[in-house]
């Protein structure tokens, strides 16, 4: 039964996007931005993502290998919305940003992505953590952080850090220069390898325990 549920056809069906909901959701967020400004919108996005992660079940793994297996299969909450691969034990690569289709539907049906989506990211980068290109990254990165906190591997809570993201309209955001060597060291990749990875993928991040 489980195999039936997770076969490619079924996954494709589950993963199919619904332009109506995606576009309406972006406009809903813009409405909040209009009323509450970048600061209010940022709070809303973070609350949205945290609330989503908290509504999902907690996870426990006995070893890092078990966790990696679940992560790569998309069975872990942290990879339930995106396809990932791991070039090293701690480095995670998102092949396609899960917001890509929604963004494409927006640009196709509404037009250029509203400025507030970038303005809110600037607010997030200066007040929370520098890693977001637009509102979508805020949701995604906040979700990953909150989801990681719900996962334990060998009794230790998983931690998340962002290295680089590129959005569907090709804007990118890399971790600040002073953080990058530390993050790359944890990811066990070089800056050249990061550049090479980003040619064909949308996001590079790390998961680790202390």
């Amino acid at each position, binding site marked *: 039964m489980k195999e039936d549920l997770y076969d490619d056809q079924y996954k494709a069906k589950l993963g199919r996007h619904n332009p*109506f909901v995606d576009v309406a959701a972006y406009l*809903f967020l813009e409405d909040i931005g209009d009323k509450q400004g970048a600061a209010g919108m940022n709070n809303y996005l973070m609350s949205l993502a945290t609330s989503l992660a908290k509504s999902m079940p907690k996870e426990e793994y006995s070893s890092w290998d078990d966790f990696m297996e679940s992560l790569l299969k998309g069975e872990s909450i942290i990879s339930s*919305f995106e396809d990932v691969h791991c070039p090293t034990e701690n480095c995670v690569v998102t092949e396609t940003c899960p917001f890509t289709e929604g963004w494409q539907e927006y640009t196709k049906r509404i037009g250029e992505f509203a400025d507030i989506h970038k303005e809110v990211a600037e607010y997030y980068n200066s007040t929370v953590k520098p890693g977001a290109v637009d509102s979508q990254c805020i949701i*995604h990165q906040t979700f990953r952080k909150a989801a990681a906190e719900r996962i334990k591997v060998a009794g230790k809570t998983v931690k998340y850090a962002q290295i680089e993201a590129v959005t569907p309209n090709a804007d990118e955001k890399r971790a600040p220069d002073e953080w990058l060597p530390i993050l790359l060291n944890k990811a066990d990749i070089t800056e050249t390898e990061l550049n090479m990875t980003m040619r064909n993928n949308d996001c590079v991040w790390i998961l680790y325990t202390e």
Partner: protein
Amino acid sequence: MLDVALVSLIKNMSEKAGIEGAIQYWSRVGENLAKRIGEEAYMGWPSFNVALKEGRTAFSIEGDVTALTDLAITDVDGDVVGYIYALKECVFTPTIKRIRYSVGEIPDADRAVAEEYNNTVQNTATCNFCVIHQKFRSEVSKNITVENQPLECVQLANRGFRGDTKINRVSLERIGINPEYVRSLLRNYACVYGILMKGARLRGSEEDE
């Protein structure tokens, strides 16, 4: 991901803004979406129906919409003033499936919002998202003209993901369609609505007068 995140907020939103507040929020979302999509003009019903089939109208954002051209809406003179349209799959079905597998359950607030909408606005919602959806259609039709006439959209029937159905007998009477016929359409479609010229003199309306 964005759609699932939004659903996880329904509970939070209805607690903070109240069920009525959630309805107002969703209505505004539907209205904004319709406004931002812009205006359209068609020379006649055939060109509108072809545009719909090819996914070029604002209504196409909802997915696979079929113009039931055997079900024309006629006015008192027998002229065609609109048609009945049917959506194969509710636009929220993929979201609901994703919620089932990633989160586990739909928040109770979903049903509470739908019930409040049915009691206070119109008895046509099977889930809280019907509020956005129906408001969107009603607003977007005002931005579209056929033969220079602005349109009106009337919700006729829908089937929720739980299998519950809503049939809007008042609107069906107005356009002169048998409710049992529309019920049979729900076997193959999730949502049925009429698009007609605003202000058309319909047989049902004439009888009321």
